[in-house]
């Protein structure tokens, strides 16, 4: 059972995300939080149960995704969680910043439900131990 955590302030996106995981073959547990502050609270509270992979939206109120990413990478206990950026925008600036700050993969939210399922399935089946982003931009950006 793979444990997936999503931080996204958009309710519709959280819904679509859950539904997509509900329809893929691999069994997952999906937990969602509503913003960056909640995310950091959650991670700090549940010390024993860290997610196998964290999906992080960038544009969130209170604390945005980029700040969360920096914080996570600075905390020893959390820094090994694979982080997948999950954002509406795919601006060069955002891609560059998150890559430098140590995110593992960048997903631009797809327009199509089928595509979303395909991508999510792909992401959770990656063996993160071997997938080091290694500052490789091509491998970092999953879809355009």
């Amino acid at each position, binding site marked *: 059972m793979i444990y997936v955590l999503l931080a996204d302030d958009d309710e519709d996106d959280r819904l679509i995300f859950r*539904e997509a995981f509900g329809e893929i073959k691999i069994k997952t547990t999906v937990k969602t939080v509503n913003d960056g502050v909640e995310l950091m609270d959650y991670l700090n509270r549940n010390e024993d149960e860290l997610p196998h992979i964290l999906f992080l939206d960038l544009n969130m109120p209170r604390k945005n995704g980029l700040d969360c990413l920096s914080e996570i990478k600075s905390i020893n206990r959390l820094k090994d969680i694979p982080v997948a950026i999950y954002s509406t925008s795919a601006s060069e600036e955002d891609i560059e910043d998150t890559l430098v700050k140590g995110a593992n993969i960048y997903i631009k*939210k*797809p327009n*199509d439900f*089928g595509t*979303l399922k395909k991508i999510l399935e792909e992401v959770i089946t990656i063996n993160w131990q071997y997938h080091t982003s290694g500052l490789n931009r091509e491998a970092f950006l999953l879809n355009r």
Partner: protein
Amino acid sequence: MNLRAMISSNSFVRGILVISLFALIFIFSVTYKHTIALRESTEILIRSYKIQGSLEQLFSCLRDAEIGQRGYLISRDSAFLNPYYSARSKSIEPYMQLDSLITNNPQQQDNLDSLWDFINLRFALLAHSLELDNEPDINKSRLDENMVRGDKVMDKIRSQINNMIELESLDFNEHQKDLTHDIYFTPNWTLFLLFFSLLVFVFSFIKINNNLIDLKKTNEYLNVTNESFRHAEDIGNFCSWRWFIDTNKFVFSDNQYRLLGCAPQSFEPTLENFLEFVHPEDRHIITDGVTLALKKAKPTSAFFRVIRNDGELRYFKSVSRLAASNGGKLLIGINSDITEQHISNMALEERNRELELSNKELASFNHIASHDLQEPLRKIQTFVSRITEKESSNLSETGKEYFIKVQSSLIHMRNLIDDLLQFSRATKTEKKFELVDLTLLLENAIQELIQDIEEKKAEINTSQLPVLNVIPFQIQQLFINLIGNALKYSQQHIAPVITINYDVINSDDYPFLKYTDQKKYHRIAVKDNGLGFEQQYAEDIFQLFYRLLPKAEMTGSGIGLSICRKIVENHKGFIFAESNPGIGSTFSVFLP
């Protein structure tokens, strides 16, 4: 040229004038010397005639005495003895005259002494003859002997006189010869020198005259220049001033006063008096500027406000520079009334700021709009795809058809928003130029389009492109848009053939590049065998939202080529299209 310059120089004229002056002095002194010599020789001639005359007089006295005595001896008439008795005293006068004439000639004096001795001897002999004759018994033989002796002495006297005359004429001839020699040469020399001097004077006169004419011309020209400068000052709203630093004297041009609203030269030109007119807040600009101008040789400029005599506020610009004049330091400057320019400049700046602001607002509006529109659109698309997948069994045929129409509209909208976002990115002025191989960017672009290329079975011919200083992602976008267009507007049933050519061209060969500052341009041409269009639309197609084909036929947003042009303009380049309907189009990009 050098020689001519030397001849026309004033010092040359002065030089030859001095030379000719010396020549004249020389001529005068030579002439004077010769006049003196001539007078001397005349004196010598007169003296020699006088000597000759006196000698002859002396001789004739002697002769008279002799003839008288002889007459008495023959006739015994004592009347014949009168000349004999007077001869002795008569001979004294010519002797004295002779003595005085030859005082400074020792040789002649000796001659005269011996002559005088002979004469005395002759007189003695004559007297002796008379004594012998008076004796009662006349000794005939002794008388004859005495007579013969007297004849001999007479011969000696004659020869002595001839001697003296000869010597005198010899002396005269000698002197005459010297004189003739001198005088023979002198007239030629004098004439030559005279002509030379005359020539020099004529030349100098012409030269000086010409110089005067030149001076007059220069003066006239200077007057005209001065006059036109005065007019220029008037027309151009500027004035000039000079400050002789050593003497602390100022000269203001008339217009300086007029620009300050005063009558020309109506107050003493000093710095203090000028500062009276300067806006109190700006006075330090002048004083600081003057200190600065005095320090460096470069021109310094200052901007300040002036309150004119009538109270009107004017904006002035002053440019001044340190100069040297006759060894003294001089600050020269020009003040211009730039109020009109200043006001229009300020208005222009204000408008520019407004324009910049509205441009910025527009760009950010465009960016935010296209960016923020993505989110709801994505959700609509996702939920529509959910409905058509999950709920299609609950829909009627009409409903399904409608949903297909909704989906195609959504795709169009997405294209529009994507392109708008791209356009706003091309407009945003973050210009990170990098030196990159354009061949690589072209390859990336083709890779992006690989799906379309394969679908349309297109043939792409690429060339080696240069390494240039560009914004990489923009140039890649340019290639994507151009090749994408060629694919999109291909002819049905004909596989697209897209050729990318590269060469370097001379700006002079292209009218639109002629007046740019680049001599050479890189030309990258993307050629296709697609639908093409009428050449008359070649310019219009680069306009935002301009479409040549009706919406239903093609899925263009009308933004793609606008992005291309924006990108090329960001690189200070040019883009042009050439096309033939049914044959194909060529898009040429010129990059510096």
